[in-house]
């Protein structure tokens, strides 16, 4: 996943909350609490980065925390909260 480009699903709305954000998927009606502002910033920044690794580097998160954030992104991908960006030919 680290070397792949991802972005927030167009069917997902992020609502800022004091703890981070609430993500709601209008298609599958799933609701997820993003419990850290750092994760919210990472998810929002995915679309502006060439891949997840670049988004993590830009986030300033300690490298020791990257595996947890990558796992969180995988879980968001499993529920279509984020989508893989198809590579251009």
């Amino acid at each position, binding site marked *: 996943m680290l070397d792949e480009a991802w972005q927030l699903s167009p069917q997902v709305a992020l609502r800022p909350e004091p703890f981070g954000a609430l993500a709601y998927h209008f298609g599958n009606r799933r609701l997820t609490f993003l*419990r*850290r502002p750092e994760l919210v910033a990472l998810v929002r920044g995915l679309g502006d980065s060439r891949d997840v690794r670049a988004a993590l580097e830009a986030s300033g998160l300690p490298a020791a925390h990257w595996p*947890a954030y990558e796992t*969180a992104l995988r*879980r968001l991908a499993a529920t279509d909260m984020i989508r893989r960006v198809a590579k251009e030919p």
Partner: protein
Amino acid sequence: MPYGTACKSSGRVITLSTLDPQHTELSEHTEHEDPPVSAEDLLEEVSIDGMCGVY
């Protein structure tokens, strides 16, 4: 403990100054260590099916 030794305990660093043993200063500061993070700390998935029909 000899002068100049630094002790670290629970993220705190305590240092004894070696400049003047007669006027040893005890200083303390806190190191900012990043606590471990898990995916469970970052995300919470909620089922809202049970809320349907409440309103």
